């Protein structure tokens, strides 16, 4: 008898995202059980594991980069994952968080913490534990090499399923009409 096939290790994270892509991933519903015959989860909000194990096969990144910690986590994923997938609009083009990109960061912080309505004696948070915001929000391909992209806001469960099953079958993932969406 053949020994059971080694399961692929998959890690996921949400950087400057809303976890909507993760929700859409969970939307593959009972197909999760089929998936779990082929993969096991490493670092992910689903497992609460905090670091990516070396030799992880697939890393799935939701969200863009809005602060220093996002960059750190992204680099950790790139270092430890053979294949990196950007999932959703924010990872791919910055998405909603990038709507701040035409405003100076200081002006935004001033308005949110000092001059906005109903604020008194506000201060801009500066605890050393807080990651520093980046001047602009960046898509993740601008910082590390990304192997595959699943566009959408969020991508449909079927689109995510298609890419994962294509990869598991050793094929180049392809989204045809109906699964390919930027919205």
């Amino acid at each position, binding site marked *: 008898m053949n020994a059971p096939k080694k399961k692929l290790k998959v890690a996921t994270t949400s950087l400057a995202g809303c976890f909507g892509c993760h929700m859409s991933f969970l939307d593959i519903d009972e197909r999760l059980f089929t998936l779990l015959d082929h993969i096991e989860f490493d670092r992910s909000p689903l497992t609460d594991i905090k670091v990516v194990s070396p030799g992880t096969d697939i890393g799935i990144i939701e969200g863009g980069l809005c602060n220093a910690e996002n960059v750190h986590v992204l680099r950790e994923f790139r270092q430890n994952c053979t294949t990196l997938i950007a999932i959703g*609009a924010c990872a791919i*083009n*910055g998405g909603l968080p*990038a709507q701040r990109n*035409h405003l100076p960061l200081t002006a935004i912080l001033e308005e949110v913490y000092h001059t906005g309505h109903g604020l008194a004696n506000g201060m801009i948070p500066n605890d050393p534990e807080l990651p520093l915001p980046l001047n*602009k929000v960046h898509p993740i391909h601008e910082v590390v090499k*990304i192997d595959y*992209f699943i566009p959408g*806001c969020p991508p449909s469960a079927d689109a995510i399923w298609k890419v994962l099953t294509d990869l598991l079958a050793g094929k180049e993932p392809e989204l045809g009409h109906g699964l*390919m969406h930027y919205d």
Partner: protein
Amino acid sequence: MSHTFTLDGKVIPFTEGQTIIQAASAAGVFIPHLCYHPEFKPHGSCKLCTVKVNGRHTASCTMRAAVGMVVESETEEINAERRALTQMLFVEGNHFCPSCEQSGNCQLQATAYHLGMMSAHYDHFFPNRAVDASHPEVLLDFNRCILCSLCVRASRDVDGKNVFALSGRGIKTHLIVNAKSGQLADTDFTLADKAAQVCPVGVILTKRRGFAVPIGERKFDKAPISETAETTEGR
């Protein structure tokens, strides 16, 4: 001698004076394009309709068909170039499809789908561009302008109003409104203008109609752009 040329091996008939893209679309063959529109004089600027004629690159919207031409269009090489051009359009402007009311009806987006554009590849410019909401019926969102000049041509050649123009040069080229204030409200532009109907992206938007047709039920949700005859009709 019969008036035909070949396009990816298929024999395409043409009449004297027709361009390659005109003959191809009459024969039901799709060539990706953004600044070309069958009702207007070609502009030849977006280069999406580039094909190889007898081995040389040329814009199929400006090149007249000639007997015996050997034209290549749907090749991996040409589509890779088209994809790169499309990616440059995406990074040059602010194209955030999830928050754009033209999503699903947008020719740029549908073309990117057609070309299998999975990401914008290049670094985004994130330009700072204004929105003009001055007109009572129409909103102008310059963030999405791809400089196809269709509104310029429609307003000048059909409406006889000259409301729009392209200003500046090179990377600084941008769409302007011909009014002293620069505001659309200070022109004689109306919703009935041809220029209000031709924008292939989400710059010229009719107010209070944005989501009348929900996302998912729009033109290019139903069929890919390669199967849709004229892409900006019936918006």
